[in-house]
């Protein structure tokens, strides 16, 4: 009884805290100063048509580096806890997959990978970017592992892609300190013509590395969970 009333009090407290948000709130009619600066001078300063990309990669680039690091830590701890010994692979009985599923997955998986790559290459022009592209690549890997459960994904490849793209991300940032205005500054390359694929300076290159890194990390989590199923 005491416990239930305590939970009730906590819920009421949170409701009062959050009620402050919407009691006087009547919708925005204008941007605040910071957002107005990003929206007005963003296209000239950064050259990216997608303003969310401009904020994620250039204006708040250091935060993105920190967030990718948090994701890396989570994936590393998951793979540390779910470690499978080398000899203990695949001692469960697998039911043979049907031929229809096998053929369809062989056609679909490369197309899904290609779509993920398209999404993170075009991150500065259309909706999308490194995080979405990485998630789509990991979804394609899930389809592949569910359709062909006996298939083994190389851990070496995932680790290699992950570390190379992480190092390149930091090196591009340091090159921005040396040759341009500051850390992760995108004027390292010329801004190009607004709205074409070779524009926005170094943003597409950074987003390709972010996409590869996020895709490799999520694929690592999925692969570890999948291989852990095989153990008794």
């Amino acid at each position, binding site marked *: 009884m005491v416990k239930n009333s305590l939970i009730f009090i906590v819920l009421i407290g949170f409701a009062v805290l959050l009620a402050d948000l919407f009691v006087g709130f009547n919708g925005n009619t204008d941007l605040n100063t910071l957002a107005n600066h990003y929206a007005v001078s963003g296209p000239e300063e950064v050259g990216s048509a997608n303003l969310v990309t401009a904020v994620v990669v250039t204006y708040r680039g250091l935060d993105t580096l920190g967030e990718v690091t948090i994701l890396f830590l989570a994936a590393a701890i998951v793979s540390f806890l779910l470690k499978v010994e080398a000899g203990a692979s695949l001692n469960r009985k697998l039911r043979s997959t049907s031929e*229809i599923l096998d053929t369809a997955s062989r056609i679909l998986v490369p197309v899904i990978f290609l779509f993920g790559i398209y999404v993170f290459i075009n991150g500065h022009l259309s909706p999308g970017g490194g995080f979405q592209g990485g998630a789509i690549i990991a979804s394609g890997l899930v389809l592949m592992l569910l359709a062909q459960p006996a298939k083994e994904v190389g851990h070496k490849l995932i680790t290699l892609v992950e570390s190379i793209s992480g190092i390149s991300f930091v090196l591009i940032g340091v090159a921005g300190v040396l040759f341009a205005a500051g850390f992760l500054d995108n004027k390292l390359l010329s801004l190009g013509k607004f709205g074409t694929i070779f524009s926005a300076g170094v943003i597409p290159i950074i987003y390709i590395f972010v996409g590869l890194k996020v895709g490799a990390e999520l694929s690592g989590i999925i692969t570890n969970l999948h291989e852990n199923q095989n153990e008794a």
Partner: protein
Amino acid sequence: MGNILEIIGAVLVLLGSVFLFLGALGLVRMPDLYNRIQAGTKASTLGTFLTLFGLLLIIPEWWGKLVLLMTFILITNPVSSHVLARAAHYIKIPLTDKTVADLLNKEETTYKVNEEIKNE
């Protein structure tokens, strides 16, 4: 000319939505899981196709994306329902009483017989 195409496209979109509604009705009204999967997949695939084709007639500039979408739906929709029905059969979800033949059981036995004949 463009006007006629637009009207035909609108009629196709309406027809497609009718098929989608029938698919949803089948999900509620059919007696067991296998019939529900069949009703949902067949009707919704045709409904989506008709809707996208009508859209192709109304706005011809989008043909690339629309053809891509149609191909994707043509590959994924039947395969996913096939996998669902197969998994449901393997964990022995019961059929309805009116079922006449269970061909998946029979098919496995005939396969075995054929292989034995081949081996001899």
